[in-house]
C-alpha cells in the first residue's frame, strides 16, 4: 500500500509552482485595480457607494475629487469591479503585499485622471529584490488572534506541494521561542489580547511582526465589532502588512519575502548611521 502511495507521488510529477509565477501574483483574490484613464466622478462615486468596508473613500465633491483605495481594508468582494467597470478591474499583479501600513493606500486625482502616490515598486523590481533574498532561513510562528480561519486555510496551503514554502528556507515552528517572525491573522479579539501579547513577548529579539488579511491590517469587516480589540497594530508593533480576504498563497509568499527584505534593508541602513 505504501508502494502505491509512493508510485502515485511519482506519477503526479512536479507540482511545485516556480517562484517567478508566485511573486506579485494575486489571481483568486479579486483585489481591485484602478485604470486612471477610465476614472470618472460617476464611476468613483458608484464604487465608493458599493464598497462594504471603508476601503474606498473620497470621490465626493467636498473631498477634492480624490479617490482613495486602502488595500488594508479591502475584502476583495468585487462589488466595485461589478458596478464601476472599466475604471475598476481585477488587479493583474499586486505589489502591495509585505509593505508598511501607509504603503497599502493608493490615491487618484479623478479629474486629472492620474494616480497621486506612485506605485511603490514595479512587480519586476520586487522580483529582482526578492530573488536576492532566496537561500536564507526564516522560522515563522503563525498566531491566530481571532480570525475566521480563512487566512489559516491559505497559510496552511503554503506547505502543500504546489507552494512548498520550505524551498525558500522558510518553515513554520510550533513555539514562539523558536520564531523569527510572527505571522498574525485576524482582528485581535478582546479574549485573545492577553495571549497575543504573551506570544509576542515569547519571541526572542530581533523579531518581525507581519499582520495578515484585511482583519489583521485594519479590522476588515470586523472593524469596530463589540468584542474586537482592534487590528494587529493596536497591540503589537507591526513591521509589514499582507492584505487580502484572505490573501492567496502567492500573496503570502510575496509578502513574507518582501517583509524580510525590507527588514534587512532597515537593519543595514541603521548600521550605516
Amino acid at each position, binding site marked *: *500500500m505504501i508502494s502505491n502511495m509512493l508510485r*502515485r*507521488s511519482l506519477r503526479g510529477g512536479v507540482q511545485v509552482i516556480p517562484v517567478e509565477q508566485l511573486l506579485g501574483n494575486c489571481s483568486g483574490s479579486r483585489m481591485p485595480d484602478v485604470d486612471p484613464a477610465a476614472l470618472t466622478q460617476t464611476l468613483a462615486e458608484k464604487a465608493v457607494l458599493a464598497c462594504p468596508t471603508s476601503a474606498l473613500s473620497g470621490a465626493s465633491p467636498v473631498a477634492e475629487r480624490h479617490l482613495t483605495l486602502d488595500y488594508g481594508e479591502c475584502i476583495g468582494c468585487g462589488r466595485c469591479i461589478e458596478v464601476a467597470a472599466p475604471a475598476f478591474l481585477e488587479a493583474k499583479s499586486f505589489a502591495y503585499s509585505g509593505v508598511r501600513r501607509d504603503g497599502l493606500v493608493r490615491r487618484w486625482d479623478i479629474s486629472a485622471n492620474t494616480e497621486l502616490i506612485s506605485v511603490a515598486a514595479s512587480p519586476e523590481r520586487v522580483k529582482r529584490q526578492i530573488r536576492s533574498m532566496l537561500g536564507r532561513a526564516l522560522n515563522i510562528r503563525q498566531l491566530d488572534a481571532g480570525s475566521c*480561519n480563512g487566512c489559516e486555510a491559505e497559510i496552511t496551503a503554503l506547505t502543500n506541494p504546489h507552494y512548498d514554502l520550505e524551498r525558500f528556507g522558510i518553515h513554520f515552528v510550533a513555539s514562539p521561542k523558536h520564531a523569527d517572525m510572527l505571522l498574525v491573522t485576524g482582528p485581535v479579539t478582546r479574549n485573545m*489580547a492577553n495571549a497575543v501579547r504573551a506570544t509576542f513577548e515569547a519571541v526572542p529579539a530581533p523579531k518581525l511582526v507581519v499582520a495578515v488579511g484585511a482583519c489583521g491590517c485594519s479590522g476588515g469587516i*470586523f472593524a469596530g*465589532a463589540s*468584542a*474586537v480589540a482592534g487590528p494587529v497594530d493596536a497591540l503589537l508593533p507591526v513591521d509589514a502588512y499582507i492584505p487580502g480576504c484572505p490573501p492567496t498563497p502567492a500573496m503570502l509568499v510575496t509578502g513574507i519575502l518582501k517583509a524580510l527584505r525590507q527588514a534587512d534593508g532597515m537593519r543595514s541602513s541603521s548600521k550605516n548611521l
Partner: protein
Amino acid sequence: MTKETGQSFAAVADLLRGGARLVAVFGSVDDRGRPIVHYIVDSGDYATFSDPVDAPIPSLTPITPAAGWHERELHEVYGVVLDGHPDLRPLMVHNTPRNAPVDGLHGTQTDGPPYRFLEVSGVGVCEVPVGPVHAGIIEPGHFRFSVVGDRVIHLELRHFYTHKGTERLFEGTFVEEGIPIAESVSGDNCFAHAVAYCQAVEHALKIAVPPRAEGIRAVGLELERMLAHVGDFGALCGDVGFNVAAAQGSGLKEILLQASAECVGTRYWRGIGAIGGVRRDISAAGARKLAETVSAVHREFAELAHDALETPSVQDRFENTGILRQQVARDFGTVGLVARASGISADIRRDHPYGAYRGLNIDVPLYHDGDVLARARVRVDETKNSARLIAALLESLPQGPISSSKIDYSRDRKSFSAVESPRGELLYWIETRDTRIARCHIRSPSFQNWPALPQAVIGNIIADFPLINKSFNLSYSGCDR
C-alpha cells in the same frame, strides 16, 4: 410553523422527551427591549417556538445536554435566568466587563471573577492546560485535561477566544450587507454561511431564486464539502505521521482551489453568494473544465483513501480511537459527519431539502463505530457523493438568469434556513426591520458538536487528542462568532 404562546417551554420539553432533536435556543429583544426566547426543534419537520420572557424560565438542559451551551449563551447575552441549569458560567466573554471601552483593552482582561474549571483530584491526577495558542496553524481555544498517566479522565473546553461580536455586527446593517459578514464567520466554509444567510432572507421576504442560481449554489456547496473532506483526510494521515498521504491530500485540495478560482474568481467561493441568486455565472466551458478537474481529483483521492486506510499503521491509530457512542451523540444533538459516524442518519440535504437538492437523490453514508476510522470513512464516502453530485449538477445546469431581479426589502419579517455545510447542519435565523437586519442568530454545526468532543476523548491517551480533535475538525470561529 411559528407558535407565539406562553406554552413554548412545555411544548418543546414534550417534543424533546418524545425523541425530537434540539436545534437551537437563542434570544432576541422585542420593540420594548424585553427579551424573547426562541426554540427550534426538529421532529421530522422543523418547529419554532418563541415566548417573551418576564421571569425566570425553566432550563431544558436537565432534559437534554444539547441545550447546555445554548442556554449559557442566552443567560450571558440576554440576562435570562434559567431555573435548573447546572452550569451558568459565562461562555463568550472572558473576564471582560461587557461594553468595556476598546482603549482600555490593556486592562480589561483581568477584571471580573476568575473562571473556575472543574477540579479533578485524586492520587496521580495531573492537570494539563493546552492553549489558547496551539502548536501549529490552528485556531485558538483552551483545553483543560485531567490525566492519570497518559489516560484522559476528564476534559473541559474553554472556547470563544475568537468571539468577535459577529451577531451584534449584523444588527442594523442593510440586509444585503450582511453577506460579507456571514462569509467571515467560518472562513473555510464561507459559501455555506453565505447560502444559509441568503436563504434565511429569501424565506423571510419570499424571494424566488432562479433555478440556475440554485444549481450554481449547490455546485459551490458540494465543492466546499470536497475541499474540506479531501484536506481533512490528508491532515488525519498527517496526524498519524503518514506524511506522504498528507502531502497528497493537501495537493489535491489545492487543485480544487485553483479550479474554483478559475471558474468563479475566488478560491473559497467568497463573494459569490447573493440574495436572490449568485453573483457569478459559470460559462459552459468553465463548467466542463470544473467537471473534469473534480472527477480527476476524485479518482486520485479515492485511490489515496483506499491505500491509506489499508495501511496497517493508519488502521492501528484510527480504529477504536475517540469513540463517540450513538446515545451520547444523540444526547448532545450532534450534527453532520460526527453524527453519521456514530450511527445517526441525518443530512439536511435529504431531510429538509433546499434549493437544487429538492430534486436530487442524496446518499447518506452511515457508520456505527463512532471512532476516528468511522469519521474518516464518512469523509471518503461523502467526497465520492459530492463529486457525483457536482458532475450531475454541472451537466444539467438550467438556463436562465442567476439572480432575482426585483427584491423588496421593506417588509419586516423573521425566518430561518438550514444548510448541510461540510461540518453539518448550519442554521441562520434572521429578523428584518426597515430594510435592515434587526437580529441574526447563527447556529453553527461546530457550536453543536464541540460539547460532544470531550465525551469522545475521555478514556483515550492524551497523545491521541490531536487526532480525535482533527477527526471532528470543528471550527472555532464558527462556534465563537
